[in-house]
């Protein structure tokens, strides 16, 4: 497969007084040249850190400890800051979470558009103005709103503006970090529709970081499931969500209340993710997994269990038999 981005054994560590926190600890996945890849996992699983590591904007206390991330043939990890700057926003752009103040509060949207288009895109001021109007139209915003300040926008509009900014220079890959988390369902759906629509019209690749399996199911073509700093399962959305191979993915699917599935008890995953300060050896999920066996004390490798469907579980081959068990609450409550 011809991958636009190939992440191999990437590790990101936070330095703390108590020792390194392994936020991302050997993550591997690929992103094809077009389509939306969902990066899904619970809070603290390392998915947001991973997105920031790819953009090269980790906080001071964090650093990439190992691995590589090959984007368009070049390793983002070893790239010099100057080389990376050339790629940023032109080839690789970012859409932040709405709740964060990702837009400069004391600059009008037009100025923030201009800045990117003129300084990074090399457009003339006039051309930049026209392009800004075009971009706003693409995400469904009125051109008149370019003159507004960020705080005058509602959450959904701010997110549309962020997407317009991200698409300004026609990037090849867009990383969106929880782009709809802080939004209400209706606005959430509208934003996801905008993203899907733009992806298919512009034919670019997107990584959609989210904690919500339903968002992945609605918007993504591929999915990468992360748990405690590692990728536990990845593949096409249909394969992974309809026939999950990893017990954690099975658990996630059953833990959701479903609008159309009636009553019955929800199936919780007991326990909590392990501390990433001193993560347990072996499979990270073993402590919460109802199907754990002696073998799970050793690390399972991320292997291609079915065509294009990778999983890191010793019992992946037994998945069809485990799936029905995983949908019963009794299995998980021990």
């Amino acid at each position, binding site marked *: 497969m011809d991958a636009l981005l190939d992440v191999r054994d990437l590790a990101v560590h936070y330095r703390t007084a108590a020792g390194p926190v392994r936020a991302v600890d050997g993550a591997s996945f690929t992103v094809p040249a077009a389509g939306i890849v969902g990066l899904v996992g619970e809070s603290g699983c390392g998915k947001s850190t991973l997105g*920031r590591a790819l953009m*090269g904007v980790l906080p001071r206390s964090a650093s990439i400890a190992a691995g590589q991330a090959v984007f368009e043939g070049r390793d983002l990890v070893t790239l010099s800051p100057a080389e990376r700057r050339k790629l940023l926003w032109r080839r690789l752009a970012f859409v932040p979470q709405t709740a964060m103040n990702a837009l400069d509060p*004391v600059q009008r949207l037009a100025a923030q558009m201009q800045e990117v288009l003129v300084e990074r895109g090399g457009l003339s001021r006039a051309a930049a103005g026209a392009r800004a109007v075009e971009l706003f139209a693409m995400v469904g915003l009125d051109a008149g709103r370019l003159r507004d300040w960020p*705080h005058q926008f509602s959450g959904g509009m701010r997110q549309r503006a962020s997407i317009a900014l991200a698409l300004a220079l026609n990037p090849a890959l867009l990383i969106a970090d929880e782009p709809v988390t802080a939004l209400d369902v209706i606005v959430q759906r509208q934003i996801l529709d905008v993203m899907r629509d733009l992806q298919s019209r512009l034919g670019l690749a997107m990584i959609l970081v989210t904690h919500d399996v339903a968002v992945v199911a609605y918007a993504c073509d591929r999915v990468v499931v992360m748990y405690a700093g590692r990728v536990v399962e990845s593949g096409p959305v249909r394969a992974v969500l309809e026939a999950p191979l990893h017990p954690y993915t099975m658990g996630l699917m059953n833990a959701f209340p479903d609008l159309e599935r009636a009553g019955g008890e929800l199936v919780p995953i007991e326990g909590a993710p392990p501390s990433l300060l001193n993560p347990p050896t072996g499979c990270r999920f073993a402590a919460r997994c109802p199907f754990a066996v002696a073998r799970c004390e050793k690390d399972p490798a991320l292997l291609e269990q079915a065509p294009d469907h990778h999983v890191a579980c010793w019992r992946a081959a037994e998945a069809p038999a485990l799936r029905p068990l995983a949908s019963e609450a009794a299995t998980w409550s021990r």
Partner: protein
Amino acid sequence: MKRFAGRIAHAAFVLWAVATLTFLLFRLMPGDPTLNFLSDSFSEEMRADLLESFGLDKPLPEQYLIYLGSLLQGDLGVSFLQKRPVLDILLAALPNTAALTITALVIAYAFGIIAGAFLAFARGTVTEGIAIPAALITRAAPEFWLGMLLLSWLSFAWGIFPSAGANVAGSEFTSEWARLTSADFLWHLILPALTLALYLQGLPLLLMRATMLEVLNDEFIVMARMKGLSRWAIVMRHAARNALLPVATAFALGLGSSFGGNVVIETVFSWPGLGRVLVSAVQGADYPLAQGAFIMIAAVLVLMNMVADLLYAWLDPRVSVGARR
């Protein structure tokens, strides 16, 4: 517009309250304030005359109304000792204080902002380890003592700068402006302004550093880095502009409080400003002059407090521009 009107009304209320407080303060303090302020050498008759000429023989509420009325007309009374209108004395001193305060503040904030921004990027370095305690020490030192040190060193020991006054005694000028721009005045200004600036720079420095550090952690700065913008653009266009909001407010506040806070520096350098007028009036029991000086200093303070608020609102669109649907 509405904010503007509201803020002016608020300032007017505070001014009225301060004026009333001042009135009561000078009249209701324990002991007879008139005694306090009248020299022992006055005869009983002279005292009665004086009381009458200053309206002090009338009942308190009436005095209060007269007081407020003349205050509104800008009439602050006549000095006991100098026998001149208080306002004239104050207006003569005002340019000196203004020159000193503004010069010192501009130096202090120019230096403090640049050094503070620089220090925000020097986290964990030796420079920071020295600069922060040094800034704290200048904040902890009494202004007059800093002045004494500079005086004894640069004026008495090395004889570079004059030790007192704003002009060489007996110099004549065609106009007040000519005096303020004369080389002689500026030469006299350097030492007191430097002392005041040394004392004042700690605040903008520490404030700029702190807000800068806070802003640099903001998501929109991380976004600017992701956009591949140059370091200069990130720092100047995004970080500094946001970090300067509270510093600009502090400048206005500093202007207000320095007008009255210069008292000690003006004393050390015998600088003929408002603070010096106040101190000598209080010491010399010249109560109309003391009261007038106090009210003028308070008025500047209240005014600048208001300016600070309005400035902040004006600079920050989140405050000045309402949300739109």
